[in-house]
């Protein structure tokens, strides 16, 4: 692959200074499962690669404090999948994370990396949005002083490969609110084969305590598309099927699927509804289950094919 400067800052200040110095020419490196591949293929040609794995301020654990769970930037997906905390409170995210690549990929790839790579087909993004996640972005102000800001993930993506994180900024971690009960969330996707694959389409659906249904659709637009039913109707158990279909259709219409090497547009459109029905039902059932005062966690669920 083409050459670059390899840098390994010891702390956040050093890291931000490097990013500032190189402008857009420095790319941050955590797991490397996206960046290193792109450099090897000639799709990225950075002047510098900044290995952040030595930066302490980028957390390497999952912590619960008050009503927020924080997933540090250095947490790899396989650890996220194994975490009891995540399985209990964010089963749909665990399901999604557990099918990103293979175990070898998940042992390196970070949640933050999956987000910042900003592929419209990223599997973790729909459930993160359904769980109302935010990211913490660190940068330097005009005076060169470090600042941090929180950005809701729903607003974070600008286009394929593009986020609100500027080229000189870094994402430190992900914050997830502990959902008020009852809450149910499910993840579903379609792929071309049963084995490891990128999603043809993916999505997550959550129904919160107020009965608001949030969908997040992936691989059907330049960014993940969030769409909400604020009426509370979709959360009703006795909603007539025709009305449910109508509502789902109106949500799905916000997407813009295309034909590409993985799938044709027509199929994607049809599958949006098919999978949406399935994840809605599962989110509903999980919420019902919670109403009974228990949680229905997820132990290493494969989460494919909208089951």
């Amino acid at each position, binding site marked *: 692959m083409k050459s*670059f400067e390899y840098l390994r800052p010891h702390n956040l200040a050093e890291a931000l200074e490097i990013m500032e110095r190189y402008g857009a020419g420095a790319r941050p490196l955590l797991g490397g499962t996206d960046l290193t591949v792109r450099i090897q293929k000639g799709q990225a040609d950075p002047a510098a690669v900044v290995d952040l794995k030595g930066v302490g301020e980028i957390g390497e654990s999952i912590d619960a404090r008050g009503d927020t769970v924080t997933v540090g930037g250095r947490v790899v997906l396989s650890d996220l999948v194994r975490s009891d905390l995540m399985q209990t409170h964010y089963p749909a995210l665990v399901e999604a994370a557990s099918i990103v690549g293979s*175990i070898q990929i998940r042992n390196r790839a970070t949640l933050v990396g999956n987000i910042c790579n900003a592929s419209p087909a990223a599997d973790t993004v729909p459930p993160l949005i359904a769980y109302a996640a935010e990211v913490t972005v660190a940068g330097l102000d005009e005076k060169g002083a470090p600042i941090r800001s929180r950005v809701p993930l729903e607003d974070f993506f600008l286009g394929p490969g593009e986020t609100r994180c500027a080229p000189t900024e870094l994402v430190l971690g992900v914050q997830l609110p502990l959902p008020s009960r009852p809450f149910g969330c499910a993840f579903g996707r379609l792929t071309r084969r049963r084995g490891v694959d990128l999603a043809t389409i993916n999505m997550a659906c959550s129904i919160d305590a107020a009965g608001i249904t949030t969908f997040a659709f992936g691989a059907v637009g330049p960014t993940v598309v969030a769409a909400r039913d604020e009426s509370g109707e979709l959360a009703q158990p006795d909603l007539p099927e025709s009305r449910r279909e109508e509502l789902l259709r109106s949500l799905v219409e916000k997407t813009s699927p295309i034909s590409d090497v993985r799938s044709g547009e027509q199929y994607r459109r049809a599958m949006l509804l098919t999978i949406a029905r399935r994840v809605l039902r599962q989110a509903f059932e999980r919420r019902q289950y919670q109403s009974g005062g228990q949680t229905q966690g997820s132990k290493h669920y494969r989460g494919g094919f909208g089951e």
Partner: protein
Amino acid sequence: MSMQRIRISITVNAERHQLEVDPYETLLELLRDRLDLTGTKKCCGEGECGACTVIMNGRAVNSCIILAAEADGSEVLTIEGLSEGGRPNQLQQAFLDAGAVQCGFCTPGMIMAAHYLLRNNPHPTDEEIREGLSGNLCRCTGYGRIVAAVQAAAAAEATAASKAGLESTPEAPK
């Protein structure tokens, strides 16, 4: 072309090395070209096929997408590090006995992934084996005998452990 050289210290198969690597050099290239450990293979070069699987700091990873520089301070186990005195260990022998080896090119990566699987899950179901090896492509075998090999190795390990009067415990990943 970059003149940057990065000094790293890396332990491979329990042997410590001090090396100077190029920034663009991968861990796979370090193993194959600098250390002459050619057992780990290159196939897809993008982390999709598992032929380059090694254990790094206790985790199975694709070495083709890890920069050599990133491996500074790490412990790496390759296929060459599994054998006992140049002879197949229990897992390697299980692959042979089950007929799970044909051309053999995917075999080192497959065995490393299986080794990692069994360390974390000593009594896997067939489905768990398939899931754990889903990142390793094989074009020759159809996978059935590979699953059988891992099952046989798990059973042999369990027998050996109970004979020794010990419970085998999974290593926590570092």
